[in-house]
């Protein structure tokens, strides 16, 4: 239960919006629900629906619309590489291809250790620093700019270590 788990955050989120429009809190609450597992469970949707006095279908319909919400368990970190036009003009597609080769997975797949899911996404507003990707994980969303495959592999090693330690 979100309210029990993050009472302070939930209260803070609800305080942002007029009480008669508490439905507005659905997006921040979904981020909160996604924080730990990297995806939103059915129970969490139920929970949010109840908190905001809307239907579970309403909540699910929002999860389905926005690409940063996920309803399935995938890698602990989602590595989202921009391959949109401006980045593609600066070698992003090649970068992604090489990364796939190095990781031994295809776009959309997860590394066998469950650490990284590799995705291609649309423009991240970092077109001048291509190749660029963001990681979406337990610690939020972070940008990684002017990347090379080597630097990326180092980052993955570091993530591996830190999650290993966390365990």
């Amino acid at each position, binding site marked *: 239960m979100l309210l029990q788990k993050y009472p302070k955050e939930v209260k803070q989120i609800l305080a942002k919006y007029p009480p008669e429009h508490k*439905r507005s809190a659905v997006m921040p609450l979904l981020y909160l629900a996604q924080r730990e597992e990297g995806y939103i469970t059915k129970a969490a949707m139920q929970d949010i629906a109840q908190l905001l006095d809307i239907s579970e279908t309403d909540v699910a319909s929002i999860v389905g619309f926005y690409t940063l919400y996920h309803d399935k368990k995938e890698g602990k970190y989602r590595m989202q590489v921009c391959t949109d036009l401006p980045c593609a003009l600066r070698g992003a597609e090649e970068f992604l291809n090489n990364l796939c080769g190095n990781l031994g997975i295809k776009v959309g797949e997860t590394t066998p250790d469950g650490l990284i899911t590799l995705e291609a996404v649309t423009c991240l507003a970092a077109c001048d620093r291509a190749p660029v990707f963001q990681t979406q994980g337990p610690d939020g969303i972070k940008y990684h700019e002017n990347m090379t495959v080597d630097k990326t592999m180092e980052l993955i090693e570091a993530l591996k270590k830190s999650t290993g330690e966390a365990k």
Partner: protein
Amino acid sequence: MAHVLLRHRDIPDIHKLEVYKKNGGFAAFQNAVTQMKPNEVTEVVKNSGLRGRGGAGFPTGMKWSFIDNKNWPHYVVANADESEPGTFKDREIMEHNPFQFLEGVAIASYAVGANAAYIYLRGEFWQIAAFLDEKIAEMEAAGYLGKNIFGSDYSLKIYTHLGAGAYICGEETAMLESIEGKRGQPRVRPPFPPSYGLYGKPTIVNNVETLTNVPLILANGAEWYKSMGTADSAGVKIFSLSGRVRKPGNYELPFGTTFRELIYTYGGGVQDSRKVKAIMPAGASSSLILVDDEKVLDTPMDYATVRTLGADLGSASVIVIDDTVSIDWLINKTVHFFRHESCGKCTPCREGTYWMSHLTERIHEGRATRADVDLLLNVAKQMQGKCLCALGEFSTMAVVTGIERFRQDFDKVVKSNS
């Protein structure tokens, strides 16, 4: 020349409250709240000739004057969705010059009588939102936000709201729906936000860059602002330069600067010294400017003149295309972007982007005939003027101008036997 918007490039640490204050920060807001009536603030902005930097170029002061004073409360929403491919200017402002932006939000709120303002950031700007939250808290602690600001009876709260990966939420009514906790799908307009906005209440939506201009306009006066830029496009603009240039990045320049200056003087010229083949002045939503003649590069960048090239300046996200790029590949890219981002609410956009993507794929993969190219052009035109919001329209711009202005690129890839 000193920067107006990217002042952090001149003043180190301007993201710190004391530094910002020392450099004149919040004086404009204080002056407005304590010395000016709201409509006087609007009047100054109107006289400055400031136009919206989100893409449509609508006169900002005029928009503020449309706020419906018969219906309360009012809201201000800052558009920090910045999702147009090739645009990355608002981000730099918020990351490095946050207080000037926030002061702009505050002044706009005072001008239209709003006691609450929301900043809608694209979900990817997660860290920026956290950063802004800190800055907002600092402003509250310093008494620039909250109740009885500067001893007046004016009160204001500013909140951030994160999107979650949907380009369409940059469209102002979709953004309002999204803040309301719904799917980010555009509303039918009219009614426009100044009469029916957030929670059905009068609302002013402005782009981050637009708002960041406001404090200095109030501080230095409308005439000062108008003295920069051109008659039709007053002031300065941040040009986000990307694509095949040596030094991509944000360049704050007066309106009327030429493409050549931007690309060669600031951008360091084209990669591998190739020729400029085409320019997209407004990101992926742009028409393709055909650069078949070097003279095209001498066109000054302002709203009116760019239009003479059959394109809109929009958000001034200049993507440079050189002669290594084939336009059939390019439109396949843009169409896929729009297909991915179509919200699905209206038929022409939902079905049209899907259909176009099949055709551009077929063409790009060399499976198409000339007739397929004609069909693509026809489908794109069939979408034009019929969609519920501008996204559908945007998706056709590169397609139509690409085929009409670069037909030879398509002729090269279609099957020869037809």
